[in-house]
């Protein structure tokens, strides 16, 4: 488990990461969301031992990461712009990583390169941005580390490749309990892969919750109430947001599906139905409750 306690990093007068406390459980996909400058990369770079925290600690299973090769051998870091040696080919990078990560699976790497149609003898400098991202992910997965840090890794991938990578992650999670930590400024990219999401803003963490918890505890109801009755009068319902379109009310409310259905039934509406919420909507609701305008934060 990765645990950040009071993690703080300042760059001159800029507070990049401000006393963050977070836990990243093994075997789950952790998504780190935030705008540019929110502190995602700084957090990641501290988690990878690149930057030394000014205050607080970041540990993997109780051991500090910074300047700790033993701990660092447990993860692979894919930066937003991965470095490859000048004139190197995928094959050469594979050999290099083999010397760094003894568990590196060359055979699998070769196969994956082939299946992603990446020529292992072609100079990486001639690859497109997306191809370099694919190569980074393949190398990272084949390093066979416990954790893989991906900083904006999915941004350069087309939808097909994104799905392919996601399925690779899913496979490794299932087979060897890989824990991916994925930073992105794009909420939609993480929606179908993350188990847990942390939202960063101005160096601080706004919320950190399991996606399932959020999905199970927040719902959207479309309903037509009895004549003369307003949604605001549904006092037993923990309402987060109400919208009207004529007599059709759309209510976002907190609570389990069963609880909400029972409550709605008790108010005897003319019509009501539960509709699914996207991750975006869940975030909007959650952060609005926290006093933030999520649209300004993420979109």
């Amino acid at each position, binding site marked *: 488990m990765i645990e950040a306690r009071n993690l703080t990093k300042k760059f001159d007068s800029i507070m990049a990461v401000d006393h963050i406390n977070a836990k990243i459980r093994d075997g789950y996909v952790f998504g780190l969301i935030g705008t540019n400058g929110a502190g995602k990369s700084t957090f990641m*770079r501290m988690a990878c031992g690149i*930057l*030394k925290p000014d205050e607080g600690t970041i540990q993997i299973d109780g051991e500090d990461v910074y*300047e700790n090769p033993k701990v*660092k051998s447990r993860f692979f870091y894919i930066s937003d712009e991965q470095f490859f040696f000048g004139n190197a080919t995928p094959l050469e990078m594979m050999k290099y990583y083999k010397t760094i990560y003894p568990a590196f699976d060359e055979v699998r790497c070769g196969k994956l390169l082939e299946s992603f149609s990446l020529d292992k003898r072609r100079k990486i400098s001639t690859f497109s941005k997306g191809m370099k991202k694919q190569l980074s992910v393949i190398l990272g997965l084949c390093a066979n580390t416990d954790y893989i840090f991906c900083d904006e890794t999915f941004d350069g991938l087309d939808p097909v490749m994104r799905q392919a990578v996601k399925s690779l992650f899913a496979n490794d999670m299932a087979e060897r309990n890989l824990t991916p930590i994925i930073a992105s400024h794009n909420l939609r990219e993480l929606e179908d892969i993350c188990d847990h999401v942390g939202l960063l803003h101005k160096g601080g963490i706004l919320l950190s919750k399991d996606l399932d918890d959020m999905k199970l505890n927040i719902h959207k109801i479309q309903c037509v109430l009895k004549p003369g009755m307003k949604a605001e009068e549904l006092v037993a319902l923990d309402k987060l947001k109400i919208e009207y379109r004529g007599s059709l009310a759309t209510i976002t409310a907190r609570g389990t599906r069963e609880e909400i259905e029972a409550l709605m039934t008790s108010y005897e509406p003319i019509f009501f139905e539960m509709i699914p919420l996207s991750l975006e909507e869940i975030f909007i609701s959650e952060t609005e409750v926290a006093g933030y305008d999520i649209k300004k934060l993420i979109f």
Partner: protein
Amino acid sequence: MNIATIAVSAIIMALTGFMFLHSRKQVDFYHSIPIRRELLFAVKYLDGILIVVSMYLLNMVLAIGVLAINGIELSTLIPVSLTTFAVHVGGFLINYGLMVIAVMLTGNFFISILGGIVLFAYIPAAIALVQGLMYLFFSTINTRGISMETWMINGSPISYYINMVVEGSGMELEKYGTLLDSVGIAGIVGLIMAVIALFLYTKRPSESAGKSMAFKITKMPIKILLVVPITIAAAILFWNIYYSLPWAVFGFIIGLVVTHAIVEIIYHFEFRKLFANLPHMGVSAVLALAVIAVFRFDLVGYDTYKPEESKFKGASIYVSNFNDWNDYGLPYQYGSGSGMHQSWRYMSGDEYAANNMSVTDYDIVSRIADAGISDAQWAKEYRYSGEDIVRDEGFWTTMEIGYQLQNGKTVYRNYHVNVTELLDVFEALYTTAEYKNGINPVLSYDIDNISGIYEAKRSEIQEVNADKALQEKLLNTYKEEMIALTLEERANETPVTSLRFLTLAEYEYLTYVSHGRSVNFTGDFRIEDMNNVNFFPVYPSFTKTLELLKEAGIDDFGPVDVDDVERMEIYSDYYTDELAYYDAVGNYYEDQVYAHGIVESTYAVPVASNEGIRTIDLKDDGTAEMRALMQEVLDVAVSHELAVMNGLQGIEYGITVRVYMKEDNEGRREADQEFVPYVFAPDEIPQFIKDAYEYETRESKNVNYGLNFSAEK
């Protein structure tokens, strides 16, 4: 490989090897992998070394192969090649190490290069600045024993490396091994630099990639370390140009503001930040003023230094006018077998005294030092105001004292002292054996070490025809009379001749030099090669020595007889300026020259005009009048060569007599004739010459008035 190749390789290797630190992308890569920074550093550092060293070795092996095929023995080639290899590797290591440190301290390629320039040049430049401040502000400055040049050479790896190579290039192959000491030092320094670089690397924040400076904490100290000396240097520069305080202040402000602004712009990569951190500029200004104040007000007591008696062990005292006649020196050999060579190491009188004198009478040393210190303090204020220093009447001389302390250190100072005022002290000093032995190498000569005795006067050198017994008597007698010589005698006597007691080593050297020229004059060597080194004066009061010289057949010590002289020309420097570009008939000359025959001669007619007249020609035309004029000159003129051996006697250097001897010039055209230069004591210049040069009306004269003259005044 030459110096430039190695030095440039070192800089390139350091920059490229650690350039990853300037790129966030690469820093993220290297610092995220499970490798300790120490290991990463070691790999990168050794990479840079091995790339160059392996190429060097390959070239060396190929070169040895080629030379061996061409018949050069491996037993010679291999040791020399290995030593050369060690020198270049040593040079590479220190230059590489310092450049890596520069890269570690900075976060940008351009700034790394600037940082490298600063690190490579800082110490020599700082030493030069301190030296400049000392010469500007201290009156008694003496750098003997404090080899600023050595510090400057050792203060930068590039100069140290160049010095190693230069030393090696002039060295005999057999002595190459001696270079290994310097190589060893380079190796140790290189290792220390590597450790410093590693320390910096382990402390270097990854986020410094792309910034100007890697460590925030170093920003202010480095800025101040740059701004302070440059500010001082700018102030000194303007002072030296205009000798004006307002200009010095202007230089100070310009140096301060411009340097501070440039550093701030570089630190921030933004022009608009040129006036950022103004308090630092204030701190720099205060520090620069403090440094200037230390020198200006001599807060370290440099000019007032005099050791306490309890710390005093002895002193070397070199008084310029007492012993300024000659250079000393020693022959030395280098190489061996067929490669043996000889050379001559010149040694000035002050250097000889510094190495061989120890006057232990504290009272003498202290009184002289007090006078010197007092003068230095007085003269200092004149120097600062830019006024000419006009000292009181008396016989002034410059001098050097080397205070030898109980703790083994020697501290040297230069002084100006009035000998007339301290005559009793100098008389006492001059008669001590410690002083005489420390200034006259001849007093340490042993007859067993003497190959012959030579006499020099009137530009001629001849061997004294004496057997060993007479040589011994001459040497011992000369020593006795030299030891007994007093200042008073010096003040009254002009040497009548000079002697050189040629040592066996000197004989061997001169023979070697003569053989090298394929000539063989006067026995085994060419006498002209003796130059004027190690000739010692014989004064008229050295009666016993003169007697022994007569015994050896040399008795020609009196004035030159008019019958032996063909003609003479009398010149005056006082007219040189007027004739610098136009002669009497209006011809133009590019340079200031003594143009025989071009200028109008007076032919013994007293000169009435400055214009066009410089020389007085006296030629034996058979008339009694002319012969009388010539004899009048010869009776009082003293050989220039001998006169300069006694700085305590008065000499008019502005008037020179060229005496053309009949014996030297028989059958020669006038233009080819040789002459012997003569001068006059200032109070013995014949009246007709004084009249010709309007001598008595001249306010400024080129005269050394001598101790007696000054004492009388």
